[in-house]
């Protein structure tokens, strides 16, 4: 990965910049080396870079003042929520200010009448649900890092989760944001009405990966929790059958709340890790149906019939405990894989579901070619594939081979009509693969938007858009010694 060249003029002005930031945020500037070391990466810890300085504003006015100063002085800015990005979105710059939003973590308003929560950007994803669950509501997007990831970061990354097919991504579940533009202007995009009139700027900034400005407030839509959820485990003799089953369920008009695919290697690893009782099979689907009781009963009956027709075997979790056990296996997939090899990388691409057998076969070929093992977990309903590549960083050349394998998998996703990332974001990780997915005019159009809002290019420079001089192409989440970066978080 090629890091941007640091601006030595900025580096030499460090003391002055720190002093000025202390005037703006007297109690929130981190400038000592040990303090800065804690901010040197996000959850993609392969890449590390200590920031010039880290500032932790307490309110939007301070954010605005920091941006006005940085903009006037031409200093790069890297926004950061909780630092759980899997694509290096919050990787600092040596010559840039790291703007941490973690201190802004108040829930400002809960409005049940209009079905929304107004929160500062540092509020965690799960805290929004916790704030409203006693009244029977929740916030739908549930990235695996939801105990730690921030709602502001979710907006920046357009985060997903297990339930996107039915409930959408972040962009479909927020009604408005307050946003600070690079020049320090504070604007409201959308609001409790969900729209603003005119161009959909809310839609544009959601998922813009910190390249257009900083989220300082979010109006998140809350939903009534489904009264009933039932879980089915279906096993199949072939991967193709499992794929056909997913297609048949969708074609039958059922939209499961979640539908997870695991291949044999993955299921076996999980079974030997925490023994959730997965049967021996080439492929397993874990399916949740939610809603009112009769709707769920109807969905379960239809899914069961489809599984049988295709020649699979379905079993239903008989009670809440059995349901939790079935899911505990799937949610431990990453940890279980960690037992198979010292290191692994998690990829994130989306494919048209019909291409699954072809993609799996091709990945087998690549696996042999690179001499590395892998296994697959897959949000089957929406085609979001998470291949896990197994390797040992201590063996010479394996890291490089794993990186090349990973990049080939993402190219394969694009080749069959899919995309580089379904939920982790481009960040620095997949930046250099963007040209595999987009032609030059496509990328230029996106880049012109960037220039329209951040003409000086100070916001999160070096992310998302490939630089022409880039030399190494990679795409992965690097895990060493079965220790995920942010290993306290479940990853699924």
């Amino acid at each position, binding site marked *: 990965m090629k890091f941007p060249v640091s601006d030595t003029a900025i580096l030499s002005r460090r003391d002055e910049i720190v002093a000025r930031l202390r005037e703006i945020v007297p109690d929130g500037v981190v400038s000592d080396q040990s303090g800065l070391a804690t901010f040197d990466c996000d959850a993609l810890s392969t890449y590390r870079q200590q920031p010039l300085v880290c500032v932790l504003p307490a309110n939007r006015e301070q954010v605005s003042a920091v941006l006005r100063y940085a903009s006037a002085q031409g200093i790069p800015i890297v926004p950061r929520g909780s630092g759980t990005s899997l694509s290096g979105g919050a990787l600092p710059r040596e010559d840039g200010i790291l703007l941490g939003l973690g201190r802004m973590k108040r829930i400002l308003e809960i*409005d049940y*009448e*209009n*079905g*929304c929560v107004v929160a500062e950007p540092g509020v965690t994803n799960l805290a929004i649900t916790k704030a409203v669950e006693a009244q029977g509501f929740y916030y739908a997007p549930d990235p695996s890092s939801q105990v730690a990831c921030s709602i502001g970061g979710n907006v920046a*990354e*357009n985060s997903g989760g297990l339930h*996107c097919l039915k409930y*959408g*991504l972040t*962009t*479909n579940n927020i009604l408005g944001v307050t946003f600070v*533009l690079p020049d320090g202007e*504070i*604007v*409201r*995009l959308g*609001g*409790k*009405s*969900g729209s*603003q*009139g*005119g*161009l*959909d*700027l*809310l*839609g544009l900034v959601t998922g813009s990966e910190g390249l257009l400005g900083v989220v300082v407030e979010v109006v998140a839509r809350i939903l*009534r929790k489904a009264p009933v959820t039932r879980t089915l485990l279906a096993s199949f003799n072939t991967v193709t059958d499992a794929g056909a089953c997913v*297609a048949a369920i*969708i074609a039958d*008009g059922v*939209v499961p709340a979640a539908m997870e695919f695991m291949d044999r290697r993955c299921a076996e690893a999980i079974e030997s890790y925490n023994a959730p009782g997965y049967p021996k099979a080439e492929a397993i689907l874990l399916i949740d149906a939610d809603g*009112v009781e*009769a*709707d769920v*009963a*109807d969905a379960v009956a239809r899914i069961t019939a489809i599984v049988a027709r295709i020649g699979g075997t379905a079993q239903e979790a008989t009670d809440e405990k059995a349901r939790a056990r079935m899911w505990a296996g799937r949610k431990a997939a990453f940890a279980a894989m960690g037992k198979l090899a010292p290191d692994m990388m998690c990829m994130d691409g*989306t494919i*048209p579901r*019909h291409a699954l057998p072809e993609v799996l076969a091709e990945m087998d070929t690549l696996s042999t070619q690179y001499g590395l093992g892998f296994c697959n977990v897959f949000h089957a309903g*929406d*085609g979001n594939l998470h291949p896990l590549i197994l390797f040992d960083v201590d063996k010479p050349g394996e890291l490089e081979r794993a990186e090349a394998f990973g990049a080939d998998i993402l190219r394969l996703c694009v080749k069959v009509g*899919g995309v580089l*990332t*379904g*939920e982790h974001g*481009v960040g620095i990780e997949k930046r250099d693969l963007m040209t595999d997915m*987009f*032609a030059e*005019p*496509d*990328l*230029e*159009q*996106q880049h012109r938007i960037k*220039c*329209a*809002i951040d003409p000086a290019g100070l916001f999160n420079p070096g992310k998302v858009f490939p630089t022409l001089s880039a030399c190494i192409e990679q795409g992965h989440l690097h895990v060493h010694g079965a220790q995920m970066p942010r290993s306290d978080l479940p990853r699924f």
Partner: protein
Amino acid sequence: MVGVGSEAEVEEFVRAARADHAPFEIVAGGTRRGVGRPMSNSLGAELPVLDVSGLTGIVKYEPEELIVTAAPGTPLSEIRAALAARNQCLGFDPADWSAMLGSNGTATLGGAVSADAFGPGRLRHGAARDSLLGFRGVNGMGESFRAGSKVVKNVTGFDLPKLVCGAFGTLCVLTELTFRVYPKASHAITLCVGDVTPEDGLAVLRRIAHSALEPAGLFYLPGGTSLLGDIGQGAAIIRLEGAEAPLAQKVAMAHGLIGGPAHALGDGDRLFEAVRNGALFAGSDLDMWRIALPPAEAPRVIKTLNPSLWLGDLAGGSLWIGAAPAAAATIRAVATKADGHAMLLRASPQSRASLGIYAPQPPALAMMARNIKAAFDPMNLLNPGRL
């Protein structure tokens, strides 16, 4: 008027327009030409028209992938029928405004996306912006490009599909649209809670909206209109969908939430179609507004404006209002005060020229929007000034 039948021809047209510094109007079925500021060139002359109705037809429909790709000139009726044949539908329930706007043209997919023309079904699956996954288009420099993707889950790069929804053709000439589609339930039932005040009726609708019933449509219709028979002072209308047996359970649950008498309507489909297409306003000569609101604000807004002709869709989140031209400033002010905004859908050319479609934005936002427009169309050739 110049007709085009391919993206290459669109490119050629735009490049020529660029060389001539000649702005133009983009038209497919032409049903929504009456929305927005009347356009003219710097000499006040009518703009040349780029007719994109020749960009038509479904390119690819994959029901198992929940994906359909179609050319923007595809008639809404055609795509609706093709999806219905596989028990699917477009999530934003696209509206045909031709009767409402006095046009005899054919409403198209591209027009519905560009005008953000959603129907009551938006309640369940969101607006066009929530299901437009990708598109192809030609920008104001005459360059074709693609944005987004053709898979249901994608976060690669900026989400440009959001921007073209409701942009009224000011950013690019659309040449292809890819949507995520939704299953259409086998059964539907329309419940009518008759003779309720706007306040009480909208409160019932919000209760249903915030329940686990996943309603497919919720609107309030005041009494004395031609859409329904005798409903007293007004009716709260609730649409529920599902397979046959579950639907019966949902209806029972809905009755519990309503807390009063309600009856099923025999012809809910027709009523919802009429509401979707703005039939209530087709025979009137009032100006027409669509106000987006936090739903709980709707009763207050209605009390303040006291409109003679109106309808409260999306459980109050989208008010359709007919009003005299003199009420324009009040409507915009009341909408803004309620943390919403008022979109002008029908008015005289003079009113449209002074009011535009959307209310003027604060300076920083207006600048942001201008810069984005320029990033697509630096010479301001595409539907200039329409927004």
